[in-house]
């Protein structure tokens, strides 16, 4: 049931924080601290996520089935940490959000005022 496209669309648009978390997981599972670092470095320090906000969001995303605690663990494993990965639904929601943003960017590019600039 959660695989219905309607259920994907209903979750959009994503909150910026959620989008950044999902993006950081796109290349594979990460633990919480690594998500914080990744988000900060990808955005050049523009976006920072702090622990309480992060773990609250992770629990919410888990509840919504967008991410799942991952069994795959890297070699330099820290056993006290949980690793999170995208679920198939999570991947689809992320893709749908990216497509939605692309459409908005196309729309913006097509506008004459912006093209001039």
């Amino acid at each position, binding site marked *: 049931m959660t695989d219905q496209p309607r259920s994907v669309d209903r979750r959009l648009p994503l909150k910026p924080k959620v989008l950044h978390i999902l993006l950081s997981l796109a290349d594979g599972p990460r*633990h*919480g*601290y690594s998500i*914080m670092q990744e988000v900060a470095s990808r955005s050049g320090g523009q976006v*920072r996520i*702090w*622990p*309480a*906000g*992060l*773990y*609250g969001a*992770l*629990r*919410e995303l888990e509840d919504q089935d967008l991410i799942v605690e991952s069994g795959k663990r890297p070699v330099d494993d820290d056993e*006290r*940490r*949980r690793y999170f990965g995208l679920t198939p639904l999570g991947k689809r929601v992320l893709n749908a959000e990216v497509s939605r943003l692309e459409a908005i960017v196309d729309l913006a590019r097509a506008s004459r005022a912006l093209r001039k600039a």
Partner: protein
Amino acid sequence: MSPHRAYNRLLSLLRGSDPQSDREMKADAALLLDAARQRGRGAVAATWLALIWDLISGTAQDLSRANRSLLRAPGFALTVSLLLGLGVAATTTLFALVDAVLLAPLPYQDADRLVAVWESNVPQNRLREGPSPGNLTDWAANNDAFEAITGFWRAQATLRGRDGSAPVTGIQVTSGFFDVFRQSPILGRTFAPDEYPGRLSITSGRTGGGEPALVLSHRLWQTLGGDPAIVGGTLQAEGRTWRVLGVMPATFAVPDTNAAFWTPWDPRAAYRDGPPREARFLSVVGRVKPELSIAAAADRMKTLAARIAADHPNTNADWTVDLVPLRDELVRSSRTELLLVFGAVFGLLMLVCANVASLSIARRTARARDTAIQLALGAGRRRIIREHFAETALCAALTALVAILFTTLSLGVAVAFAPADIPRLHEVDINSRVVLFAIALAMIATTIGVLLPGVRGGSAAITPALKDGAPLSGQRAGRVRRALVVAEIAVTVVLLVGAGLLARSFASLQRVDPGFNVQNLLVLRIAPDVTRYRGQQVIEYYNRVLDSIREVPGVAAAAAVTVLPMSTIGSDFYRPYWLDGAKPAGNVMPQANVRMASPGYFATLGLRLVAGREFALQDTVQSPRVIVINESLAQAAWPGQDPLGRELILDYQGGATSRQIVGVVRDARYKGPRSEPSPEIFIPHAQNPYLVMNVVVRTTMEPAALAQTARTQALKIDPDQPVHSITTMERLLDDTLQEDRFAMLFVALFAAAGLITAASGVYALLAYTVGQRRREIAVRMAIGASSSSVARLIVMESMMLAAVGCVAGALGIAAVSRLARSVLFGIAPTDPLTLMATAIVLLAVVLAASWLPARKAARINPVAAMRI
């Protein structure tokens, strides 16, 4: 506690639903803080704040997701946190000041072994006088209590640079100074032992013992451009060239932050007849030997002092030595003020807590029905209590956050505006102790304001609360709220009386007659080059400068003097005197303050002559030596007799000379309205040429308008001689009252804040009561009570509160009046006018606060109120 552990505490306080997440959060926070530490203290502070904020907002989001009670009414948590946060911030600011000034150790190695050394003569009631150079020299050579001992004194010097000159304070230190304080310079070096012998004082105009050398303060170094190359270079001061040996760190402030440089001084070389024993003016600090307690060191010093007294009974009989830990010594003068202010702030915080508690009780009673419904529907009491705790924790965290933010702001403001002479103020900083204090106080404040007043909510009985129309507020809650309002009024009464007394005390300080006419007086200071003017050249120079200034239209008179009234510039010269004949035996030697004045000084100042004449141009080195004395000295030396024409022998400048009294002048309060006049001797400037003088100008117009013209006129005579510190006498008088003004404004501010808090407390209580008693009032009106009698009922209740509060406040005043007496001037702590005015103001404000609730009660429509 490290930020890590503080964060962990806060986290376990706020969360706890998900242990795994909490563990990871702790680890992450530790990593983030460690990473921030690489980037410096600012980054740590920023990260720390971001983490706290994240924790609070994250927890709030969790709670709102769980549909907990709090965020249904976020206004309550925000209001409470802002109110309490401001109160905690004010208290924390004062704590930071008290912490830095009173509690923190001095920034020297093994600072607890540093003691200030004083001389006291109990039979003569001369306590805590600065040791004399002669005694210090003996102590330094013969004591077995100290590893090192040093004496120092301050002198005003004029620093000359390419772009003009500036007056600075130089500290002249005897050998061992840097061994006592054990502070290394940040640049260069301090003085070697062989650089002390032979050094004369800065202002002596002579050089002794090799090239003049000095060590700069951090501040003066920064003012001069902060170039490290200054070490090894030279500075021009007091007509000589000084070699700069080193620069001290910014924390080194001996004796205070005014110290611009330190220079060696040798008491053996400075006096022709050897270091004097009876001139007691030095500041002396010793480093107690590590194996000795301070008490043991004091015993040894007392033994030594007794031995010296036996050898030199004329100067030292009855004189003994006191040792005071240096930290106690430094803060002695500010302790009472700081603790008073701290008490006032804490009182204000308690007021805020009382108001918040009152708010919480009102909220609890208003929600009693909700709670009862929750309980009836099967919610566990435990859960309701846990929610209440979570809510309190959130309020506490928000309060702490608000408090830390506002403390940061207010500390900057406080340091900028506090009186300049509070010692160690420059060391104030937000450190972990201050942050912890804020957090602890925030917890206490929220416990008082939120947790305790609300905690009965969980035990509310279900059925009575659910009954329609049941009285929602318990009798007990009402009594507690009334008691809180009474407490608020009581504290406000104390603050109001304090403000009133300080204002009256300030007014009487301003009314004090300083002894002369302070209006229309311009003053300026001239510090000529000692190598350029000597002896009679100095007199000629000043005569020409004064003539030049007198030419200016608007100038009525001009004169010169060594030390001006009200001015902190220039030092006192207390010298012994006696009446004709030989120097009396024994050690009781009266002293008088000696000043040099030019002809016309008393007329210019408006200082009335009681008898005789003032100095004239005919009083020169060739003419007989004359003096003018003040009334205090006349009274002391010739009680009830005419002193004119009598001789007085003054031991001054190495010789006892007889001088004839030609005039008696009124007493002036030389150091501000609080000071008592002391015996004074004036010598004609021409009979004792003195280089650095204050010029005082009587004007017929606004004196400040003539400042530049007067300066130009003085520079016309010699453009190379610096003219500075131009100001008016009224400004100088005003400056002596700076501390009193600060105290008055500060307490007035708190009294106003207290008044507002009490008024809002009264208003909130009455408005709530009127709401609760709607039905009862409606019944009264239905059976014939008039609107005005209902309004009177409400007003009477507020007046009762005010009356009880006033009585409680009066008890508080009685408790603090002993402390207040030392601060007040010319007024008793029980001044009836102030007490009356306070009562009237308070009753008026309470009356005004009860106006709206009373009107509301009077307008209750009995029919509408009874229908519900």
